[in-house]
């Protein structure tokens, strides 16, 4: 793979990760948001595989495949089952309206790009230049966590943050050791399963997924 193809492929995939993060703020339907999350996982797996191919690192290619399997197939399938379980909560109810969240996402992207100038100068590779993209995805994920109250939206926010962190890890260190990456991915999978159990409990007790209803004590 030539250097320019490598750089442009990496740029496009990183951009896809950021775009999917913004799409989760843009769309209201939870189905569309989960699809965006699956595409983000796909792009993230491709980032790892492209770096692995470029550096002839078989371990990284395997990590990429595992990330792809976990984040593009298994986790979205789990969340889709939660969404399907409650037909009343097919749409998100953001605390901040959509245009304002989108403008905030734009501002957060600027913040990420401005604050990582010194970091990108430390890693003067094609991958290192893209670190701010990963940080933007992390910040957008935090924003989604803060402004969305439904349980499914919270899971989506955590996954956005995790995908962003994984992207920064791939770009900055050209791949963390296989064991560490596996540990992180399994952690997230576990978190999703726990949240799934929690949402099922929430629904059976309260009849909805809304975390705000946990503010008061019930018998």
């Amino acid at each position, binding site marked *: 793979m030539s250097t320019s193809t490598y750089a442009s492929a990496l740029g*496009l995939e990183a951009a896809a990760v950021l775009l999917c993060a913004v799409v989760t703020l843009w769309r209201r339907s939870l189905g569309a948001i989960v699809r965006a999350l699956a595409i983000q996982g796909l792009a993230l797996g491709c980032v790892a595989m492209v770096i692995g191919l470029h550096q002839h690192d078989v371990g990284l290619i395997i990590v990429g495949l595992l990330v792809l399997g976990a984040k593009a197939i298994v986790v979205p399938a789990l969340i889709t089952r939660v969404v399907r379980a409650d037909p009343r909560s097919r749409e998100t109810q953001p605390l901040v309206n959509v245009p304002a969240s989108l403008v905030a996402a734009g501002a957060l992207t600027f913040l990420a790009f401005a604050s990582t100038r010194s970091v*990108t100068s430390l890693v003067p590779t094609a991958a290192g230049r893209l670190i701010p993209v990963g940080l933007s995805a992390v910040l957008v994920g935090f924003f989604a966590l803060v402004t969305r109250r439904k349980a499914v939206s919270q899971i989506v926010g955590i996954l956005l943050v995790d995908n962003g962190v994984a992207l920064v890890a791939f770009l900055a260190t050209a791949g963390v050791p296989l064991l560490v990456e596996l540990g992180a991915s399994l952690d997230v999978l576990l978190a999703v399963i726990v949240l799934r159990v929690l949402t099922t409990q929430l629904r059976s007790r309260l009849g909805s997924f809304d975390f705000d209803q946990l503010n008061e004590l019930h018998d």
Partner: protein
Amino acid sequence: MSGISPMIGAGIASGVQVVAVGVGGPMLVGAMRKVRCRLEGRVGPPILQPLVDIRKLFRKQRLRPDQATWIFPLAPVALVATVAVAAVITPLATTRPALGSGSDLFVLVYLLLVGSTLLALAGLDAGTAFGGMGSSRAVTIGALAEPALLVTILALSATAHSSNLPAIVRATLGDPGSVATPQRLFALGSLLIVIVAESGRLPVDNPATHLELTMVHEAMILEYAGPDLALVTVGEAMRLTLLLGVFVNLVAPWGVATTTHVSAIAIGLGALGAKVAVVGVVLAVFEVSMAKVRLFRIPELLAGAFVLALLGVVSGLVVR
């Protein structure tokens, strides 16, 4: 025909572009209607039907509201005139149109804005409730699309280091890889949403509806009849074609003439027609599968376009 001077060649090329947009515009609208009808299981009117309708309207009596001022008859003429001027200077069939140095993206945007502003004023001018409502909605959508459009231009002009449209198209031809950069793709996505909003297509406005709750553009031009309505229809079709022509030449500029030779311009014209037709048909297919967005959700759509353009600018800063 290499004997003619470049200036005359550019003049001929621009003339060809205006005629192509003027005749091709209604045909594009007809083709999009045909695709829509076929997908919905209807036969649909022939592709040339809009041209026939326009000829019919031109023969009808000139009828204007009693209270209307000079703005009412001026608006359709100004609409067609500004789009025609824009068609002269934009690189549609050739990258060397007449007055090419003035073919700035900002010039193009504000030329088109003159026409739509006058049309909005004309909607108010007739003094009917519908006209005012339509104008209010159209201006709201336009005002929301404007920031997205300006940031998009910023993102597009960063690669060519110029907001001159022929220069951007030439730079893209010289470096085909620049189309596949995140910066350009974000900007083009934003541009497509803005084009759909500005030309009043689904999901922003339904051009086929006359239901008072939903119509935007149709409400604005409700008082127009006869030759005036024909001009408005032609102007709107030309504007859609022009915007789509600019879009396709930014996405895939291949085939566009870089000289003013007659054969090159002919090839450029054919390529332009084919590319615009493809994009038009794709848009029509999407329109069939889409419902009109609620009026109060249009800001969400255009805020999305704005953020896409912003991401384009920001990613252009680091990803080179």
